[in-house]
């Protein structure tokens, strides 16, 4: 096996440099299969005649040297390493007649197939992107004509819109209990009742804030809800002619009092 060039015994400077280049570039690989494909290129043979055993050794040497350099390898690189180590043992040992399952040759052939298929798809992708493309190399009519006197509205929606709408609905559904959390909501009815009770004792202008119930003046969410409901209640009572409202300026505090004579 010529994979000796990756063994740890006597790595030449160039070999170490080559190994490091690979490792430093590990982020550039899209996973173990991509790395294996790159390694297989060093064999300089048709992918169909590749030595999987040699490839397994190259990969294991790569993982080993990555460890030596304390490079963190993602789990899938290590899973592949374990699998290749197993494959290597299956390829090297004489077949055990008592053992079930695929032979080492079958596994190796499948790996070779995967590599060849990935390489073929990359090639196909490159050929596809190299084609003459609309808007780059050939063009549609620049000024499409639509000289109609009749107008028709066509509503547009695509599948993504549809799926998103449904997802949105269903997500909301799942969390309905939360959506109706009422602990921090001061209801308008409660505000009306409270304000109605306090009003007879409010002959003078009093700030709206003063009418917030105990326990609703601290936490911002609770305070906001109480303020909104109380304010809505003042509007309702003002409409009924029970109280008067006053605000000195925009955003100034709002004051209210019982309507004189009411």
């Amino acid at each position, binding site marked *: 096996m010529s994979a000796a060039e990756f063994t740890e015994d006597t790595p030449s400077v160039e070999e170490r440099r080559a190994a490091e280049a690979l490792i430093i570039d590990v982020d550039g690989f899209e996973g173990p299969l991509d790395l294996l494909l790159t390694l297989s290129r060093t064999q300089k043979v048709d992918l169909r005649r590749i030595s999987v055993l040699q490839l397994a050794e190259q990969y294991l040497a790569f993982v080993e040297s990555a460890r030596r350099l304390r490079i963190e390898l993602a789990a899938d690189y290590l899973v592949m390493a374990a699998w290749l180590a197993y494959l290597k043992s299956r390829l090297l040992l004489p077949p055990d007649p008592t053992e079930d399952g695929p032979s080492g040759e079958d596994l190796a052939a499948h790996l070779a197939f995967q590599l060849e298929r990935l390489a073929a798809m990359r090639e196909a992708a490159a050929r596809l992107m190299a084609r003459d493309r609309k808007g780059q190399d050939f063009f549609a009519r620049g000024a499409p004509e639509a000289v109609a006197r009749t*107008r*028709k509205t*066509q509503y547009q929606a695509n599948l993504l819109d549809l799926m998103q709408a449904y997802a949105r609905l269903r997500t909301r559904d799942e969390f309905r209990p939360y959506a109706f959390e009422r602990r921090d909501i001061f209801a308008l009815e409660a505000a009306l009742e409270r304000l109605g009770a306090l009003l007879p004792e409010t002959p003078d202008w009093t700030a709206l804030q003063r009418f917030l119930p105990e326990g609703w003046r601290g936490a911002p969410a609770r305070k906001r809800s109480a303020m909104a409901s109380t304010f809505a209640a003042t509007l309702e009572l003002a409409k009924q002619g029970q109280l008067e409202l006053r605000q000195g300026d925009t955003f100034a505090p709002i004051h209210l009092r019982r309507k004189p004579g009411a």
Partner: protein
Amino acid sequence: MSADTDPSLFAAPPMAEQERMVEAMLFASAEPLRVSDLAARMPHGCDPAEALMHLRSRYAGRGVHLVRVGDGWAMRTAPDLGWLLQAERVETRKLSRAAIETLAIIAYHQPVTRAEIEEIRGVAVSRGTIDQLLDMEWIRLGRRRMTPGRPVTFVVTEGFLDHFGLESARDLPGLAELRAAGLLDSRPRPGQVAESDEEDESPRRGQSELFED
């Protein structure tokens, strides 16, 4: 024409080729092109004015004409065929949120009654929304439900499947797939009112500031 070294003195392409060039440029351009525009894009020594004349006679009597527009040239439908394009003018508008949600519910739950749609949406479904979807022929009436009141149900149509590129409504991805595809947002924080935040495009900060200390 001499095959000199100066590129501008190279022989211009044959007139048939120049005609092709002018044809392609006029076709692809969104605006009418002047002779000078054409000349600026063509190789040296070309004569777009002559190519235009050839092209004009080539298109004479065809379904499209080469016409003069201001001081430029453009291709236009032959006036006698304008009637063919009348159905062309379609205004496309985005479907309203209520409509797309209603449509999604019908697609995923069909056959489904109006009450069930309202149950899922959590709000009443306006008649206009249903009418619009019926009108677009994306939904139709299904069989009546055999429950008290025998309510009508709604199902999606072939036209719907065609528009959305689906073979059947069963091809719609399920919730698990929607989630895997990242279309389901992650769980909102407890206590947060689910509806308010994502849906409201207009920031509510202005209002809430009023109540902040």
